[in-house]
């Protein structure tokens, strides 16, 4: 058997950490080259083993368990009972704050907020509130809500949707574009069994930017004109 084969077998014996077989031992003892190769190999494995042993058997840091226990204590600490209430209260405060901000934004002239939001219109048939006579939009919808100029565009869209709906209360809901469909669906679900109809907002992508600003004109208080018929009762009695 050539030296190459012996060497391979000797290396394998060293890798396995076993003593070489008798035939290998005999060759190793008689062949200087194979002996040198085997010794080198053994030295290499000894170095690997020494390094690995040093790495895995090194001393544990003295405070290891104390630190682990401290971490465990933190992990095991139950949440205080008031924690869920606190979270709920915080959420409620946040919602109220956001509502106030939204209301403030809607009532501040010059803000583009309203302009950016498409308006969905919900119609609920009712005979209690009469429409403003003489004011109708292009589709013939009574324009009760249109007495406020800023509501006209929304109303026109609604008019196009509702066509000949004759008597109705106009409920305007401002909805962000990505929530419009969801809200419509939600309301539809809620209204099952009720005498209500829901109209999804039309796609207003193009019209969004052309919507007029929501502006509230300053309130002008003019002096009251006294009518003759407004004479106090005491004077009437004297007459």
């Amino acid at each position, binding site marked *: 058997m050539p030296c190459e084969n012996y060497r391979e077998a000797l290396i394998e014996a060293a890798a396995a950490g076993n003593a070489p077989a008798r035939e290998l031992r005999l060759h190793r003892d008689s062949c200087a080259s194979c002996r040198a190769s085997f010794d080198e190999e053994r030295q290499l494995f000894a170095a690997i083993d020494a390094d690995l042993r040093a790495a895995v058997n090194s001393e544990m840091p003295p405070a290891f368990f104390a630190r682990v226990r401290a971490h*465990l204590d933190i992990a095991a600490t139950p949440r205080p009972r008031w924690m869920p209430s606190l979270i709920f209260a915080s959420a409620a405060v946040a919602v109220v704050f956001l509502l106030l901000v939204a209301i403030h934004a809607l009532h501040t002239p010059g803000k583009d907020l309203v302009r950016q939001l498409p308006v969905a219109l919900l119609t609920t048939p009712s005979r209690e509130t009469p429409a403003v006579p003489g004011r109708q939009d292009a589709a013939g919808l009574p324009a009760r809500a249109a007495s406020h100029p800023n509501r006209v565009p929304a109303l026109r869209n609604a008019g196009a949707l509702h066509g000949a709906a004759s008597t109705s209360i106009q409920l305007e809901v401002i909805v962000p574009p990505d929530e419009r469909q969801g809200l419509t669906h939600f309301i539809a679900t809620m209204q099952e069994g009720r005498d209500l109809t829901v109209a999804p907002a039309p796609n207003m992508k193009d019209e969004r930017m052309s919507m007029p600003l929501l502006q509230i004109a300053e309130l002008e208080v003019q002096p009251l004109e006294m009518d003759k018929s407004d004479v106090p009762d005491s004077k009437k009695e004297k007459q």
Partner: protein
Amino acid sequence: MQELVLIQPSRTVEDELAQEQAHAALRREFEKRLAECGPLAFRVARGVLRNSADAEDVAQEAILRAYRRFERLRDRERFRSWLVRIAFRLAIDRTRSSKRREVRETLWSQAAPRPSTEDLAASSEFQEHLDRAMEELPEKHRLVLLLAAMQGHTLEEVAAMLGLPLGTVKSRLFFARKQLAEKLRCRVKTIEKR
């Protein structure tokens, strides 16, 4: 929840007490396992990371994870096996973080070369080569190699810990050592010639 409190307040308190007692018992049991297996987690991590501070971080993380799922890991063998594997996995993940690697390589390059190469294992250069060779090993071979190098662990125990037949452990160990030697042979010769 609140209705329950109003109707039967005493029962809720009892429930809470029972729950607290159960938690305390679980914690005691965990502490026992921790005393047995905590060092193992640290050593496996230390074997991969070659750094005690990092190994402690990793071992702690592994132990915390074990604690969170201790109810499913109450069996001693199962716990030990799980902890070893998770510590090994976390340590490997940490080694792979490129930032850590950079720091380590800087440290290696800054380490003063030892004048004597008689003790190869003590040479930082050899350690660096061994480190790299270890990283190139298949993970299942690497884990067996580390566990087999631990004091007080026979190959039979390693096999039991990993839930493997003894023959599989032996063959993994053999191939791991052979592969390491092949990778290191040329490098070590270079070091010796200097």
